[in-house]
């Protein structure tokens, strides 16, 4: 384990930014935080988390896939893929780090998505242990320890210092470039920090939320639960929950005619949208209830069924904070499944 005084944090950032684009959470004018590219003078945010999850780094909201030129009856295809630039995402919380595992299982399963893989191969994740979890946090429900985040390098911040521990070859290589700015240390301070965080975790209102009653094989039991009507009743059908979610990965592929060619791009899509499953001759999910149910069944039943029981939720709490009508996965889990009546 290596440590560095927080006073020297900008030197650390400068050293990282010398070799790779560095992204870290920065406070914005509206009071929330977002990942921004670091440059001299950028101030690292103290916010617990960003409004948008860092899934953008690997699966951006819009991404051009290829271009076409058409002339008469001919079509020419231009492969516009290029090697991604090396980049470092700094300060990713434990929940968001876990979301990359969940996305990996979708995008890196054969046939692997080369666009995602390209970014994934060139990105280094420096995670950061939480210091101040809030009432909307429930990562523990999904077995995530906010005091011991994964990632290529794990980091802990105390009042005075920042501690780093490399977990992967990529992480070791990056930490090596910081060896002049950091010094070897024991994990005493980190252990103390972990204990502090875990004490706070015990006070969180959602600490007892359980995944009991969910998981693969529960389709028949949960699909026709009468509670879906009530739960989805107020849903506006917007895409807020989907777009702030670190694990939602549905996308649409569209063509944009620029007037001198066609760009085929993909963009995030939401199963909450009424046209998500709409075909030329019909729609298999006509009501908002069906669409609402799809989102939660996917996270809590279908995904775990296909992925060894891993749930497609990391308990980051973004949807709790952002849903315009305050309907969210926690309320769903408390109404149906094993938390009923608790």
């Amino acid at each position, binding site marked *: 384990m290596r440590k560095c005084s927080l006073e020297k944090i900008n030197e650390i950032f400068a050293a990282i930014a010398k070799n790779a684009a560095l992204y870290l959470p920065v406070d914005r004018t509206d009071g929330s935080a977002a990942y921004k590219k670091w440059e001299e003078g950028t101030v690292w945010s103290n916010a617990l988390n960003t409004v948008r999850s860092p899934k953008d780094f690997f699966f951006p909201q819009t991404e051009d896939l290829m271009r076409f030129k058409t002339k008469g009856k001919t079509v020419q295809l231009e492969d516009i893929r290029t090697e991604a630039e090396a980049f470092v995402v700094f300060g990713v919380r434990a929940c968001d780090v876990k979301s990359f595992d969940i996305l990996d299982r979708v995008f890196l399963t054969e046939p692997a998505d080369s666009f995602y893989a390209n970014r994934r191969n060139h990105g280094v994740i420096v995670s950061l242990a939480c210091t101040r979890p809030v009432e909307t946090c429930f990562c523990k429900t999904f077995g995530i320890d906010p005091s011991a985040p994964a990632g290529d390098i794990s980091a802990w911040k105390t009042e005075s210092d920042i501690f780093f521990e490399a977990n992967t070859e990529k992480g070791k290589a990056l930490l090596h470039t910081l060896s002049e700015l950091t010094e070897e240390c024991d994990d005493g301070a980190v252990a103390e920090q972990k204990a502090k965080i875990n004490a706070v975790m015990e006070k969180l209102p959602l600490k007892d939320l359980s995944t009991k009653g969910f998981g693969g094989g529960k389709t028949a039991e949960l699909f026709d639960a009468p509670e879906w009507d*009530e739960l989805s009743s107020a849903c506006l059908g917007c895409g807020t929950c989907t777009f702030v979610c670190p694990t939602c990965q549905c996308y649409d592929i569209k063509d944009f005619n620029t007037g001198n060619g066609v760009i085929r791009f993909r963009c*995030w899509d939401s199963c909450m949208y009424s046209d998500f499953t709409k075909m030329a001759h019909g729609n298999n999910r006509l009501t908002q209830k069906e669409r609402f149910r799809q989102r939660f069944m996917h996270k809590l039943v279908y995904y775990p069924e296909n992925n060894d029981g891993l749930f497609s939720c990391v308990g980051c709490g973004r949807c709790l904070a952002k849903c315009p009508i*305050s309907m969210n996965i926690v309320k769903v889990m408390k109404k149906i499944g094993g938390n009923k009546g608790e």
Partner: protein
Amino acid sequence: MQKITREQLIAKASELLSNGTVSQVLGWGKGEFDYDVTPTLFSSAEELENGFVFNDFCGANFSKYLVSKAAKADGKLLVFLKPCDTYSFNQLLTEHRFDREKVYAVGIPCEGMADISKVKAISGDGIASINADGDNLVVTTLYEDAPITIATKDVLAERCINCKSKKHVAYDELMGEEGEVLASNRFDEVARLEAMTADERFAFWQNELSRCIRCNACRDACPACTCEKCVFDNPNSGVENKSPANEFEEKLFHIIRAYHVAGRCTDCGECSRVCPQNIPLHLLNRKFIKDINEFYGEYQAGEEVDSRAPLVNYTTEDLEPGEVFDRGDNNA
């Protein structure tokens, strides 16, 4: 603290349910925390007792729900309307978006609703509880030992600071006392932007709109956005898009959305309330309202049922678009 209490509202709703006036109640449902409230349908006194809340975080405007919920309800639907909600209610009636006969509207007074992000900015994150105590909110958090007392007026939502009216323009029954139309300062921020140079304004909006994630929450929450199929969802419209692919698409969406509700927007402020990225979308709507007021005379959408919106109306003496700017220059 709100002048009307949860108990009074439950009593009223239970009474109307039991005497058969209404079959369902559209009200605020209890959330996980003291501040997250979900619009909920209640159909019995027992359900109300267990799940109904009314506090300083009941900002949601129920008018739009009437479009879908009133049509489905068996009997009449009871809806609680704050003064600002009644304007949307009337506007939707003007546009024939729901059946008035299926709705029983109860006007309730409102002292302004709080914005949880403002509360958190003062108390810090990790809210454990929030309780109203007179003109204050008493907040306990996971991190502070002592409760924190915050004056409610310091954490009012932007739209409530600039409340345009405490008067109900529609109801079947009114609870509490009727208020007045207020002389609000709601156009001050628009005027401040107007006074900037074009470059400054451009930079301002570039910063704000660049945060848009095109979640459509503003559109889907807006009581004026009730098109069956939005142009932005229609592949044949030529402007369909699903993502803010670039700065142009961001602007296109927000200009057209604001434009489409211009003259019909009652300035209820839901768009800004629901925006996950805190974009001050209400300023676009207020700009249209301010312009319309100045160009064509004062007009408040939803004030009267069946009034004709200014952009679907004209006089032969209207000013020319070019004169708009000449006028502006004279003012400056």
